[in-house]
């Protein structure tokens, strides 16, 4: 049995896909997209994820795997909510862009930030300046250029763990 991360996390990938779609309306509203096109854009969003789900989940698993190998993460720390939200979010984003849905990809990325923020909130942290900075990068299309492959994830993860240490 060597399917490892994918089979371990497949159920979580599907579950978090649901959370992304459920967060789409508030992200859509915050983005300021055309309300008259909401239904069409929601349909395009879900249809793209549905048609590319294997590719999206492979990319997510591959990128998490690359991360844990690169940074020599112990296997019992191989997955956490920040990783699932971030790497699944980025994989969905990439397939939306590949399918020509750049605006929907940005709205989806708003949802990713909202979910990362909520994870921080459940740990007792509220970082509105971090949220604003990430949203600006998304709007300007600069998240890869400014933060690379893991920068956004590492920022959220480090905020949560660093503050835990300080509070201890």
């Amino acid at each position, binding site marked *: 049995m060597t399917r490892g991360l994918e089979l*371990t996390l497949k159920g979580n990938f599907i579950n978090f896909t*649901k959370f992304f779609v459920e967060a789409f309306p508030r992200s859509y509203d915050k983005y300021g997209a055309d309300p008259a096109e909401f239904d069409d854009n929601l349909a395009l969003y879900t249809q793209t994820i549905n048609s590319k789900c294997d590719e999206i989940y492979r990319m997510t698993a591959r990128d998490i795997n690359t991360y844990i190998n690169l940074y020599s993460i112990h296997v019992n720390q191989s997955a*956490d*909510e920040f990783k699932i939200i971030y790497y699944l979010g980025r994989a969905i984003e990439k397939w939306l862009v590949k399918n020509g849905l750049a605006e929907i990809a940005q709205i989806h990325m708003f949802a990713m930030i909202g979910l990362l923020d909520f994870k921080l909130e459940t740990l007792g942290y509220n970082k509105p300046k971090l949220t604003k900075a990430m949203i600006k990068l998304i709007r300007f299309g600069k998240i890869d250029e400014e933060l690379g492959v893991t920068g956004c994830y590492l920022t959220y993860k480090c905020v949560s763990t660093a503050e835990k240490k300080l509070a201890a």
Partner: protein
Amino acid sequence: MTRTNIADWEARAQVAAAELCKKIDAAVSDTLDLAFVAPADANGTNSLSSDFVDRLDRREHLTDQFLAAI
């Protein structure tokens, strides 16, 4: 955007999300073969919080606080 409209959108998104996940679950359950990307020793381990997932399932994040900073 009014509160009513957001509620309508969210109701439609919840239906769409449920339908999507049902389709995906059926599509990937027998065909996912991704051994090439995973270390064998990663199998069976994760540190996900069921409490966090439960809160998302209850949609506790979908409030006026969602992305309130922007």
